């Protein structure tokens, strides 16, 4: 957990769990760590951890099995990839274009930089 991060801690928790699902650490239809485990691990208030998990519940990424805990929904990986691609545009491309304008870089120069990045 990075307390210097711009985003509130509960959003970072949600993202960490999403990363775990995308990387296969928490496969579909398996259990994710409990809010207690998450809060002890990151040394954060359980209410904050719960708020983070609830983001995933609201977006259908995880669901509650009564008396058992939270499980990764079927199709969660596909849903997350789609969502992350949109965020990729927002987080990287929009910022990249803004910074490029500041530095006076042309679109062509950016494209060749991207190509250089891929070939590294």
């Amino acid at each position, binding site marked *: *957990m990075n307390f*210097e*991060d*711009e985003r509130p801690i509960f959003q970072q928790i949600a993202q960490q769990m999403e990363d775990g699902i995308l990387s296969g650490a928490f496969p579909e239809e398996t259990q994710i760590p409990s809010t*207690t485990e998450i*809060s002890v691990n990151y*040394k*954060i*208030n*359980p209410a904050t951890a719960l708020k983070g998990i609830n983001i995933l519940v609201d977006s259908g990424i995880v669901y509650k099995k009564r008396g058992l805990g939270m499980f990764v929904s079927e199709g969660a990986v596909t849903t997350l990839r789609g969502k992350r691609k949109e965020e990729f545009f927002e987080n990287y491309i929009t910022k990249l274009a803004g910074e490029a304008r500041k530095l006076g870089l042309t679109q062509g120069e950016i494209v060749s930089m991207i190509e250089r990045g891929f070939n590294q």
Partner: protein
Amino acid sequence: MSGIEVRNTSKNYGSVHALKAVSVHFEENKIYGLLGRNGAGKSTLLNAITGRIFADSGEVLVDGEATLENDHALGKIYMMSEKNYYPEGMKIRDVFKWTKEFYPDFDTSYANKLAERFELNTDKKVRTLSTGYSSIFKLITALSTNARYILLDEPVLGLDANHRDLFYRILIEKYSENPCTVIISTHLIEEAAGVIEHVVIIKDGQVIKDESREELMSKGYTATGAASVIDKFTADKNLLGADSLGGLKTAYILGTLDRAAVPDGIEISKMDLQRLFIQLTNA
């Protein structure tokens, strides 16, 4: 009303106004951070809540009951303080035994388990403990009482980094299994920041902030840029303070940030709780 209610409480020490008509409500099952500079009145407030000192005016209620000369209400509160109130020659195991006499819900086997995790020898006497272990035995005692309201005044004093880490983990485990109200007063703000749900900041005997940590944190930000640009930007804002480095200026601002209204040449970043605290409590 449930929780601890401090109503209009004042306390003077001679000409020093340690508490000035303080009113604050500590709700049930929340973890509070009580923050303030040295001499701001934190310990006086905690001592007034637990009846260790008598306030000059005002009252304290626990779950609706006035605490004055009321053992039933006071029995719901356990306070760990920097000062040691146990007999110097008492062994730690006997501290546990005697605490159970006053707090019948004290869980001795839990206390012994925590002692093992902290590698505290319970055959040792209070007087032989280092500053760190003196804090540890008091922490273990506090967490084992199962009191509804646990007040921790400087809980991590003298603890090394590993033990502080262990303490916060144990506190969250305990709180998750058996929620209660915890009020943590500490100067090590960043370490406690994640655990705290609600922040109460006290300055010169008065409560100056009383809100959820998330809410408070969402309002503080810094703006860095050329001094002239920054001065123009902060003119209509609640400016807490500023640092200058040559022509470069960093302003500490409290308020809701409208990102669209930030001019070019200004870098915005978030303020952590400690920085926000420093800016709020600077003279």
